[in-house]
């Protein structure tokens, strides 16, 4: 594959320049940059170093000059001491006596006076302007003048000054605005008598200063005396370059001035300083010289840098050339690139390009291969996944040790283990138990030993266990997979419990009809009996036909009708002793009619018995009701009977006493009659209720019936603290009823209501009985109580037998009631009252119409 040689254009110029040339250019550029940078940085650094150095040197020079000056002053002091102590002066003073009152002027000498030794001894050392001799009073007695300078007036006149100065060895002072050095020394005569002082007077002028420096004046350095208070020079070593009286500020333009104080010359009242002046021109010259030197060094450094850099790059490019040649050969041979890699231009860029291209090429190739591989893998994986997921069989792959390594969704469903649970478990332990596990391991061994076998031979039926422990049969096939370095088995399993069951069911279904105890027959559209099971014999004899014969005409017509309409038809037949219910069902598309018979003889008998039983129950219930009420009635009866007895006894007693009138007795007798009637009434009612009566229907006013019932329960109601409110319709409500039965129903309802009322506080108890006419055809009787009501759950089961909410109830009352009412073609319903409590409604057909007719 040829290399795609694409180059970024903006670098093309750079690329064309060969590397050595480029390295020279870069070297030069870098050199210049280094130069420029150093030029910026170095002089400044040098200047600061130079200034520091200069300062040190100036300081040193100043100190040196001062030391020299001090030494020169010391020379004067020594000279003064020498002269004062010289034998010649002592000898001279021996005879002299300075009288205090003398008014003569001092003696003036122009040549060497007699009190001084030869001038050769000391004049080479010092050049004072005058040498004075003073007496103890400080008066000048003799003056030796050297040179032409007159004695300053301050010395000539002012003795006080001299007196004040005499004890001082060396003193620097100004006389007449000129600086002078005065040195005094005690003068003694030969006998040791103190005569006065010898004083050396030296003007500090240019000569003095120059002499103090002993001609040592490098680079034109000057010294001077500076009046520090006024900042001006009093004298200098060079009168021309620095005239006296010049101000310090003026001098600083030409010189660098270093001033030092004369600390050792005590007594001076003046603030004089010793100044060392270095001419600026000297400093500048020095600085230029340093800068020049530095520039030269810089040039050398830059040149060296450029040379070394260029050399290194040149060698590098040579090496690169060789590499490029080899790369080019490799490119042509291995990658099949037609283009030679070496081109004119920068070798480094060429190499970089080539590496870029090479990397890109490798990357592309690798990506391509990866994609190809991935696509293949993905496809195969998808295919496998699809097979695994959609397979109706459980597909489980296990490795050689029997550990599950793959487990498909169908297997999850079939065995109940999730994939995560199953993976890593031993297959035989997870799926099989006991015998099957053993069989499976044998199968596995078998599969390994015999390689080529027909697939059907490899199917086996085993018993598998679900996760929840359920056992079911599976069909199983094992396929060994020989991978490169390992062996695996794919096991296909199929739950065959359904198939088994269906097989069984089909088998059992076949027996189904023949086993049925009920008659089952099939006839075709012409009425021919195609099939009749064993239980059908009695029916066949009823129809008077055998199997494979046709039905009687009536039934043939029915068969035709049923097939025509496509709807079921149900009927009953009574043959001999049995009663059958028959259901004829058409199988329209096949043209058959199935006849399902059911022997309902027993059912009928049971029904009849139930009816009889219910009658019995009504009676039993009535008796039990009566039994319960008998207690009440006994009490009721006791009341009038006791009253009768009381009245009778009372009457007898009164008659015996004969102290009462006949009126009392008559009253009591009337009461006796009434109470006896009351007792009789009660007994009558009791008799009416007790005793089994055959149902007798007669027309009666329902209001009368209700009233009667209310009087029965009067006692019970009173006991419960309830007054029964009777809301009757105004007119009569004739109904045709068995009065005793309806009374029974009403009694039942009222008793229930009273029971309910006992459970609530007495002042809330209310029981209402309403009668009314409904649409002329119905009579409605309603029993309303204010009790706790009936729970919704109980409401639905209210009329079920033996369903009761009472502790002592039989659960028969409402059942019997409903039976009675329904016997009368009426209905009885219960409902919850909105204001609380229960309402029972009885609807009975009115007898109005009959009476109208």
């Amino acid at each position, binding site marked *: 594959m040829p290399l795609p040689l694409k180059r970024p254009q903006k670098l093309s110029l750079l690329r064309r320049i060969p590397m050595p040339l480029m390295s020279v250019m870069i070297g030069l550029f870098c050199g210049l940059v280094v130069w420029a940078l150093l030029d910026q940085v170095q002089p400044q650094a040098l200047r600061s170093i130079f200034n520091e150095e200069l300062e040190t040197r100036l300081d040193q020079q100043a100190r040196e000059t001062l030391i020299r000056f001090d030494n020169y002053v010391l020379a004067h002091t020594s000279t003064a001491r020498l002269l004062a102590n010289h034998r010649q002066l002592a000898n001279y003073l021996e005879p002299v006596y300075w009288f205090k009152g003398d008014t003569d002027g001092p003696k003036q000498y122009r040549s060497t006076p007699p009190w001084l030794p030869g001038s050769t001894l000391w004049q080479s050392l010092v050049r004072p302007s005058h040498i004075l001799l003073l007496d103890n009073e400080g008066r000048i007695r003799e003056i030796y003048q050297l040179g032409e300078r007159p004695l300053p007036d301050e010395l000539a006149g002012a003795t006080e000054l001299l007196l004040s100065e005499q004890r001082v060895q060396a003193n620097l002072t100004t006389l007449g605005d000129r600086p002078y050095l005065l040195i005094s020394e005690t003068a003694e005569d030969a006998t040791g008598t103190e005569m006065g002082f010898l004083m050396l007077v030296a003007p500090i002028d240019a000569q003095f200063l120059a002499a103090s420096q002993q001609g040592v004046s490098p680079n034109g350095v000057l010294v001077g005396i500076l009046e520090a208070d006024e900042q001006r020079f009093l004298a200098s070593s060079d009168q021309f370059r620095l005239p006296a009286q010049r101000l310090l500020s003026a001098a600083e333009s030409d010189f660098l001035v270093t001033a030092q104080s004369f600390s050792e010359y005590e007594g001076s009242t003046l603030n004089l300083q010793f100044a060392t002046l270095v001419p600026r021109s000297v400093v500048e010259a020095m600085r230029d010289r340093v800068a020049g030197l530095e520039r030269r060094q810089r040039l050398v450094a830059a040149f060296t840098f450029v040379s070394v850099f260029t050399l290194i790059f040149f060698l590098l490019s040579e090496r690169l050339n060789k590499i490029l040649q080899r790369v080019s050969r490799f490119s042509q041979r291995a990658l099949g690139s037609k283009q030679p890699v070496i081109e004119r231009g920068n070798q480094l860029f060429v190499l970089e390009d080539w590496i870029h291209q090479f990397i890109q090429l490798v990357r592309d190739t690798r990506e391509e291969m990866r994609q190809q591989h991935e696509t293949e893998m993905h496809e195969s994986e998808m295919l496998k996944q699809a097979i695994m997921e959609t397979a109706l069989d459980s597909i489980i792959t296990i490795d050689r040790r029997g550990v599950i390594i793959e487990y498909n969704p169908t297997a999850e469903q079939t065995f109940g283990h999730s994939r995560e649970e199953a993976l890593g478990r031993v297959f035989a332990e997870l799926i099989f138990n006991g015998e099957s596990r053993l069989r499976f391991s044998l199968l596995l061994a078998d599969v390994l030993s015999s390689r080529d076998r027909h697939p059907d031979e490899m199917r086996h039926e085993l018993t598998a266990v679900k996760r929840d422990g359920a056992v079911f049969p599976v069909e199983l096939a094992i396929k060994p997979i020989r991978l490169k370095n390992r062996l695996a088995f794919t096991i296909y399993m199929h739950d065959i419990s359904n198939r088994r069951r269906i097989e069984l069911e089909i088998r059992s279904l076949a027996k189904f009809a023949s086993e049925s105890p009920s008659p089952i027959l099939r006839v075709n559209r012409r009425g021919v009996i195609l099939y009749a099971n064993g239980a059908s014999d009695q029916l066949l004899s009823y129809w008077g036909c055998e199997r494979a014969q046709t039905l009687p005409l009536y039934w043939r017509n029915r068969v035709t009708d049923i097939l025509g309409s496509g709807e079921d038809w149900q009927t009953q037949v009574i043959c001999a002793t049995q009663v059958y219910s028959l259901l004829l069902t058409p199988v329209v598309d096949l043209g058959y009619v199935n006849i399902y018979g059911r022997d309902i003889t027993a059912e009928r008998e049971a029904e009849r018995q139930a009816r009889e039983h219910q009658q019995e129950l009504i009676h039993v219930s009535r008796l039990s009701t009566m039994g319960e009420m008998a207690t009440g009635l006994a009490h009721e009866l006791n009341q009038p009977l006791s009253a009768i007895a009381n*009245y009778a006894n009372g009457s007898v007693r009164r008659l015996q006493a004969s102290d009462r009138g006949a009126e009392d007795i008559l009253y009591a007798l009337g009461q006796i009659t009434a109470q006896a009637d009351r007792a009789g009434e009660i007994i009558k009612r009791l008799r009416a209720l007790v005793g089994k009566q055959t149902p007798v229907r007669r027309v009666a006013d329902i209001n009368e019936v209700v009233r009667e019932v209310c009087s029965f329960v009067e006692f019970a109601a009173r006991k419960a603290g309830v007054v029964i409110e009777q809301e009757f319709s105004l007119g009569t409500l004739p109904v045709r009823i068995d009065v005793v039965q309806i009374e029974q129903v009403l009694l039942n309802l009222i008793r229930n209501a009273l029971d309910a009322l006992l459970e609530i506080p007495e002042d809330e108890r209310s029981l209402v009985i309403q009668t009314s006419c409904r649409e002329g055809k119905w009579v409605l009787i309603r029993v309303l109580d204010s009790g706790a009501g009936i729970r919704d759950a109980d409401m639905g089961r209210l009329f079920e037998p033996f369903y009761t909410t009472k502790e002592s109830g039989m659960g028969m009352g409402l059942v019997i009631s409903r039976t009675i009412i329904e016997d009368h073609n009426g209905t009885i319903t219960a409902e919850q009252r909105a204001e609380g409590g229960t309402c029972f409604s009885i609807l009975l057909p009115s007898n109005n119409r009959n009476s109208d007719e």
Partner: protein
Amino acid sequence: MNSTNATVFVVDDDSAMRNSLKWLIETVGMKVETFASAEEFIKSYYPGRAGCLLLDVRMPGMSGLELQEYFVRQNILIPVIIITGHGDVPMSVRAMKAGAVDFIEKPFNDELLLESIRNAMTLDQDQRSLQAERAEIAARLAQLTPREHEVMEMVTNGKANKEIASALGVSAKTVEAHRARVMEKMEATSLAGLVKMVIAANLYGDH
């Protein structure tokens, strides 16, 4: 028998029963008052009244037994005769336990009833006089000083004067003086009379 003040109270919800009883009892010249319910009776009765109570067991509202219990709670001593329509045994036992003097079943013999009433009246009379006596003795006891009380207790316990003196730390003479004052205040003529009084007042029982 003080029949002028004593009244027979008849409580029965049945008016015929009430009136016939009144008719019967009045023949022997006793005062009769009738009430239709227990509540009505409680309203008009005050404990001081002499007489006996004829009570029907079964009544709406407060029953006869409940009324009886009420009397026991209120500490009212009135002889009660229970009348019942059907002499069930548990109820009669309850009534007798609650202190009923008699238990009569309906319909009843008039002689039996009247005899029972007479007995009840006598009992009432006795109870009343006993109560009056007790009140009298209590009033007398109230007059005693604590020390006299102490002495009386010891005397009635059969202690000799000397024993009392040493127990109380006083002289026998002082005890004698106390004793004399006790006898005087209690209006006892002899030691036996004093002991009887103390027992009648149920003094020790009350402690």
